[in-house]
């Protein structure tokens, strides 16, 4: 998938619906109040950070360690915003709004657009779909969590990884993209048993470094991708 079609936006909204339900139910289950759950969803703006916080608390860790591990998990959004920031041209305020709204699906799809204005359009359309799904999901989780029961029985926890797979689908058809993804996932899996939560995902960025070093042509890997002629002389 590179340029999303109308039905794709529906699926993206559904994915974040599933994420919203999962996070809300996890918060409510632990006795966190409804206003706090919705407030956290609004201002933290990172489902995985919330889940990381809860995981640390469940394991008996302090709130400070919980916050730290939430930051660490969100470091991938810094990397994604970086990737977006390299191509996103707009007034400062719009760039700030785009940075705050950087998630995996919208950045992953936007940076695959060849054209700058198309990049902006895809980014904000995907963002809108994600937000609609996320807010409906958060509200449903908060108020109807008991009715839905365990989302895993419906396979809801498979929805987010499947969507992410589709989002990088076009990238992994390229040799450099495939290398980045396979090495990144491999590093992440190797580190999971030994490194604290969040660090394995941050380290998966090294997959992109390996791919660039492998597929960059020219002496000492200094020149960029594409035809290399002038600096050979």
């Amino acid at each position, binding site marked *: *998938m590179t340029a999303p079609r109308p*039905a794709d936006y529906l*699926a*993206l909204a*559904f994915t974040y619906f599933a994420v919203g339900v999962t996070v809300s139910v996890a918060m409510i289950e632990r006795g966190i109040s409804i206003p*706090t759950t919705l*407030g956290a969803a609004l*201002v*933290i*703006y990172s489902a*995985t*950070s*919330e889940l990381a*916080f809860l995981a640390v608390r469940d394991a008996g860790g302090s*709130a400070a360690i919980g*916050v730290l591990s939430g930051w660490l998990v*969100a470091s*991938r*959004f*810094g*990397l994604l*915003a*970086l*990737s*977006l*920031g390299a191509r996103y041209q707009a007034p400062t305020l719009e*760039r*700030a709004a785009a*940075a*705050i709204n*950087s998630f*995996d699906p919208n950045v*992953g799809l936007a940076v695959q657009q060849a054209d700058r204005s198309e990049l902006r359009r895809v980014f904000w359309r995907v963002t809108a779909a994600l937000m609609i799904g996320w807010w409906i999901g958060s509200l449903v989780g908060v108020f109807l969590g008991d009715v839905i029961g365990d989302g895993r*029985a419906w*396979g809801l926890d*498979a929805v987010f*990884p*499947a*969507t*992410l797979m*589709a989002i*990088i*689908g076009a990238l*992994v058809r390229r040799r450099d*993209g495939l290398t*980045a*993804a396979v090495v*990144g*996932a491999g590093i*992440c*899996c190797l580190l*999971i048993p030994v490194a604290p939560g969040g660090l*394995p*995902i941050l380290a*998966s960025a090294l*997959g*992109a*470094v390996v791919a660039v070093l492998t597929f960059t042509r020219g002496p000492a890997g*200094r020149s*960029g991708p594409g035809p290399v002629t002038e600096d050979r002389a």
Partner: protein
Amino acid sequence: MSWWAIVAMSAGVAGQRLVGMFWAGPVLARRPTLSHLGDLLPAAVIAGVIAQLTFVSDARLTLDARAVGLLVAAVMVWRKAPLTVVVIAAAAATALVRLLA
């Protein structure tokens, strides 16, 4: 989850996004090799997130019904199925494995 934890978390998460957009992103854009890196970062990082979501429970590597869902998703993506189909097939496969297990 106390309010100070929520405020601290929000500041750290937003701060990292803003640093990426306004400082690191433009630095990357000025150098061709680095901008290639920027193009490939989502593939690497998102693959890491997929691995984390699929193969981990309680901070341990595990192989369970989610792996089947991911495999189904991968095949669907390879066959260029629409996202709706990918998502439904992955969820259905995962739910089915859990039902049978």
